[in-house]
């Protein structure tokens, strides 16, 4: 016989289950609506011409080539700068640094930096990289600013991934007369790699969509050329999208939607690359 008490408990469990189910699908639903709208507006504009033409005053002729190339340049250099520094700092703090006041202070700072608004990084980039280093509004200045912005995220996720590696593996290596570096490079870092990679992709995905710091450092909004080196001027997808969206004509709004689709596609490509790499690595481990 089921007592009334047990019936109530089952009811509460069901309600909670329903609540979690709905909030989980709410996110998917919103994303679906967004995708639907953007696709309906932008899809007709998506063709080869859109990808291979430079922006123009005439919507029919306008393309996204300079912004797409700019974003690829920007994200490549951002990755080149932030990944080694981020992983290095994470490994140092988690595996090598003594736990003392100083490292606690650094910890606290990094956690806070992860929450600083991106426009503040833009101002920092403007003062340090654009003015002080004299890099002008170049790809390099933009990449360095973006690197500052995502470094805390990479460092924190690297540390989380390292912390998730069971201590027994470190002990096994140490007991074989391994130095700390041999332990970390041969066992700990490879074991943490999938987690580190996830962090990097999340951070780069954030960088790819950031607009404010780039506008702050003065990245151009109308560019009729593609960058050929790190010192060239550039524009990026979110800036181009922002530019089109702020114009009054409806055609430009539709172009912005098409730009969003391109941006989402680049993001998706990056994420699936990470999933494939991670999957391969995990299979090799089995």
């Amino acid at each position, binding site marked *: 016989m089921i007592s009334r008490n047990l019936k109530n408990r089952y009811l509460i469990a069901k309600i909670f289950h329903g609540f979690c189910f709905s909030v989980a699908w709410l996110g998917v639903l919103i994303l679906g609506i967004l995708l639907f709208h953007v696709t309906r507006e932008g899809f007709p504009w998506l063709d080869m011409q859109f990808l291979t033409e430079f922006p123009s005053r005439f919507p029919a002729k306008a393309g996204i080539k300079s912004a797409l190339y700019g974003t690829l340049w920007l994200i490549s250099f951002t990755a080149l700068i932030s990944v080694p520094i981020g992983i290095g700092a994470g490994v140092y703090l988690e595996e090598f640094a003594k736990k003392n006041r100083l490292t606690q202070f650094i910890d606290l700072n990094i956690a806070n930096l992860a929450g600083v608004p991106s426009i503040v990084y833009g101002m920092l980039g403007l003062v340090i990289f654009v003015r002080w280093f004299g890099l002008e509004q170049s790809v390099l200045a933009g990449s360095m600013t973006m690197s500052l912005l995502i470094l805390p995220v990479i460092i924190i996720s690297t540390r989380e991934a390292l912390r998730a590696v069971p201590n027994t593996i470190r002990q096994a290596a140490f007991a074989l*007369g391994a130095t700390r570096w041999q332990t970390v490079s041969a066992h700990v870092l490879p074991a943490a790699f999938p987690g580190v990679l996830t962090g990097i992709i999340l951070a780069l995905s954030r960088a790819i969509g950031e607009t404010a710091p780039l506008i702050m450092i003065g990245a151009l909004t109308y560019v009729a050329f593609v960058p050929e080196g790190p010192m060239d001027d550039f524009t990026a997808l979110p800036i181009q999208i922002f530019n089109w969206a702020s114009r009054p004509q409806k055609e430009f709004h539709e172009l912005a939607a098409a730009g969003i689709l391109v941006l989402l596609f680049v993001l998706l490509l990056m994420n699936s690359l990470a999933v494939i790499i991670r999957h391969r690595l995990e299979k090799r481990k089995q």
Partner: protein
Amino acid sequence: MIANLLKAKPTTNVVTGKMEENQRNIVLEIEDVKISYSGEMAVKGITLSIPRNEITAIIGPSGCGKSTLLRSLNRMNDFVLGAKVEGKILYHGIDLYGKDVDPVEVRRKIGMVFQKPNPFPKSIFDNVSWGPIINGYKGDVYALVEKSLQQAALWDEVKDRLKSSAMTLSGGQQQRLCIARALAMEPDVILMDEPCSALDPVSTAHIEDLMFELKKEYTLVIVTHNMQQASRASKYTAFFESGNLIEFGETQNIFTLPKENRTEDYVTGRFG
């Protein structure tokens, strides 16, 4: 450096011929060792000698400091935050906690097998070969891996799948792999921290047989919760209780004619 140390004369002067004989047969001398974790005393002044080519068992209730002491013998306590070792641990007469002793060198000579099998998530071959390779082993690595796996009584079970992951092995096999990994370093002493506590009786029997074989070439120190294991496998037994050494002697005597009541209560299961 330890290699030089091995040739060095013992620091304690030997008086009689008999003591000299004893000295040579003692691998580790633990002298009034106190170990604390952030001020909390876990080992309260223990003096103990570990004889060469024998199995010495350390028994005692949980939290008595037996694992702590074991881990101080190859400086694995260095990694525990706030751990502090006082007193002397002499390895062939050299203080392991001396200023010019490199802990990495210590661990090359004094290997360890842990409570839970902890193979690297790599191939069986790589698990065994990694230690010698990073330590600059010059000989035939393949031959060394085969020899180590044979010594650990695992060779026949894995010789056809050395390239497959160590994670595909059973728990007992994994533990023997960990023993093989320690043996591949050609150590002098092997410390085992409850090596069978996560294993079933059949695997346990396997590993105990293995310990008998190993003592011909190595000195073994095992920490165990299992009374039968201590009585079956070891030549000497030390009984610890709350950080103190209560009794140390030949296993036979500890289990049949203990001098202390507390020892008797513990080994017969009447303690508390």
